[in-house]
């Protein structure tokens, strides 16, 4: 059996989200979008409406 003692997995989702935001930054996504996403994710709000607003901005009346 492996002698490794893996870290508790309870914070893996937040670690994953942070990696996601860093990768978005590397992919050239604007700081505003990343800041907005970090705020909603940090608030634990993973609803479609909030993520959409953070990612794409509010729907604009063009």
């Amino acid at each position, binding site marked *: *059996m*492996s002698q*490794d*003692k*893996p*870290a*508790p*997995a*309870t914070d*893996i*989702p937040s*670690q*994953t*989200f942070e*990696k*996601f935001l860093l*990768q*978005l930054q590397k*992919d050239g*996504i604007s700081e505003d*979008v990343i800041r907005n996403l970090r705020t909603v*994710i940090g608030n634990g709000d*993973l*609803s*479609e409406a909030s*993520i*959409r607003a953070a*990612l*794409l901005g509010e729907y*604009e009346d*063009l």
Partner: protein
Amino acid sequence: MIRVEKITIREFRGIRDLAIDFRTKNFAICGPNGTGKSGVVDALEFGLTGGISRLSGKGTKEISIAEHAPHVDSMKRPDKAKVTLSLYIPSLKKSVQIERTVSQRQTPAISDKDPKVLAILRQVADHPEFSLSRRELIQYILSTPGDRAKEVQALLRLDAIESMRAVLLKISNASKRAVEPLKKEQQIAKDNLLRALDITQLQKEKTLAVVNAKREVLGLPPLAEITPTTSFKDGLAAVKPGDAPTVPKIQALSDIERLKEVLDEVNNEESKAKCEQIVQDLEALKDNPHIAENALKENLLRSALAMVEDKACPVCDTQWEPEHLKEHINGKLAELKDTSAKRNAIEVLLKPHIDCLIESRDALAAVARYGAKFKPPIDATAANDFMNEINRRIKVIGAFVPVADTIVVVKEITVVPVNVQTLIEKIEAAISAIPDPTKQDAAREYLTVAQERLDTFRGVSRRLKKAEEQATLAKTAFDCYIKVSTGVLDGIYKSVAKEFGELYSYINSDDEKEFTAKLTPSYGRLGFDVDFYGRGFFPPGAYHSEGHQDGMGLCLYLALMKHLMSDGFMFAVLDDVLMSVDTGHRREVCKLLKEKFPDTQFILTTHDPIWLKHMNTVGLIAPTDHLHFRQWDVDHGPTDWDSRDVWQEIEDMLRRNDVPNAAGTLRRYLEFFSKEACHSLRAPVVFRGDAQYQLGELMPAAIGQFRKHLRAGKAAAQSWGNDADEAKVSAYEESFAKLATASNVDQWQINAAIHYNEWANLKAGDFRPVVQAFRDLLATFVCAKDGCGAIYVTPDAANLEAIRCGCGSINFNLKKK
């Protein structure tokens, strides 16, 4: 996190009043089905979390903890249904008591308010997965990849990762879908603009040339450049408020010309010929009910496919992963491929006609609007009716079935009503009658209409650009998330799969020492394939036996828990989880739990006493750390042989003159006791494949073996010249012989069935001596010292060395000099 010292259960589930001292050690509860084992499991879960898994989830809609957790006689008194737990917290070196009633299940009374203690108890309450039943265990193994992903991710607290993936996919799909209609809208706006400019290509030089020519007529300076804010009519005086709307003659005639062209496309000879061919194809399908029915099914499936977004079927609300549901629907559509192929071929032929209808409808609407600008307005009823008719035709053709209706529409698709043609002629005549505009008026109208259409084109282009940017951003975010989350999940699952493989091969080291497994995450699914004797990787249910699958479920659970809680995995309840595992592997499972999880306190339940023996002999549980439930009734709850005074109970029955029950209880107790005695004394019993040993086989075997050991003890003492021991053994032997004779038990070897069946026919007074005789006999199998327990031989395998008790008061050497 915690270990359990004690539990007290009152008026909870099937239990009236029960206290168990776990001593923070591994502990087993054994008993036939329906004797209350799972009630203890429920109480442990309830005490620690306030929830009961068995009363929630699938198939428990009508059941609630508030109503059904109390004992059935205390349904209206949830305050009486109470579980009290004494816990030990190793990290704080503290004991704490938690008391929870069903009426106040969210607010337990906790004896220690230290924030550290409360934090640990909250953490425990957040992990109800410490309790595992076989039903839960097997779903890790045999569920679909989608369901397995849900179960495993829920256990590993990874659900949020999957939720985010689903949300980002939904946003990406919606953003992509928003682009296409805007592209069509932009194309129409562009065509209208080109017609207004009277050019065929939207190029800057050509546009500037035609616009500046008109501006020159009006004495306006030429435009040097076209920027996003350029206005063709820059400098042109605005229309005064109150001016009647005018019909731009040249543009209106151009639009009428375009309408005529489109209508000609609708009903020219070539179009008619094509429609006749389509009608023939449709006629060939019309009388085939199978095709008609399949076409209806196909419509339903196509509609469902278009509506799949959420994690549920749009028709019946069954939970699905969107990708799986789409895959499922596409599979159903594939089954209709013959119908689909014929239908698709016809729909390809119909598409240009539908496009033409749409274009003619929009062109007719524009012309009808010109008619409304005349005084008095030209009645456009015919145009409106025809536009409605066009919409109807499009709808019928789109539905395809009933095929007969589609045939009717296709037959008349080329028909343009006479009154529409008359209306168009009337509007055209009215427009033609407008005096030709002066060169300046024509230029003014040109610039005004062109600017209106440019504004429309710019607006839709901005929206399209925005939509395309959003679609690109949403796709980038989704792709990025998939890359990151797949990397994370891959890492976790590789580690869990490795741990799982090692645990499983440990319990199957006899024939699957090289066993490995693969957990493969992909888009909301978790594939699980295991090695089958080096022949390749297959789903666990493909070739492995049910017993092996049980073992896999336990090992996967243990690997997941180890990953989830690491050193905090200190407590687990395994509720009858390994019922299919065979005898040989049970020992290995016990060894696995004991050796690989030495810091975890396991509470195990089993209906199989042999399993209990394995736990004992392997040392997973200490000899006294178990309960053996014998029966359950609604008035008393579970009762066990060890903790209740069975002799008092029998006497109570006899006082009530209830001899049949007293006889039954004595018989069951003798069965239980003699089985234990056979085990402790290594007594040979005729083997039964079904392990259903009878009292007549067990009790004589135990007595005979005890006699044999006492004789051997006496002979050994003689060989060593140990007179004192010889005397002790002889006295024990003599006393034992008398008691055995008194119980008349020897006669059972002649007819094992008779005696204890006849007991039920005795009078209470006649049965009491029988009870007393057995009570005295059984007492000789147990050390007289309080709390010591049964006499047993050592070792439990190979050559015998001694017969003794736990405290050493009885210790007879069996080895001769």
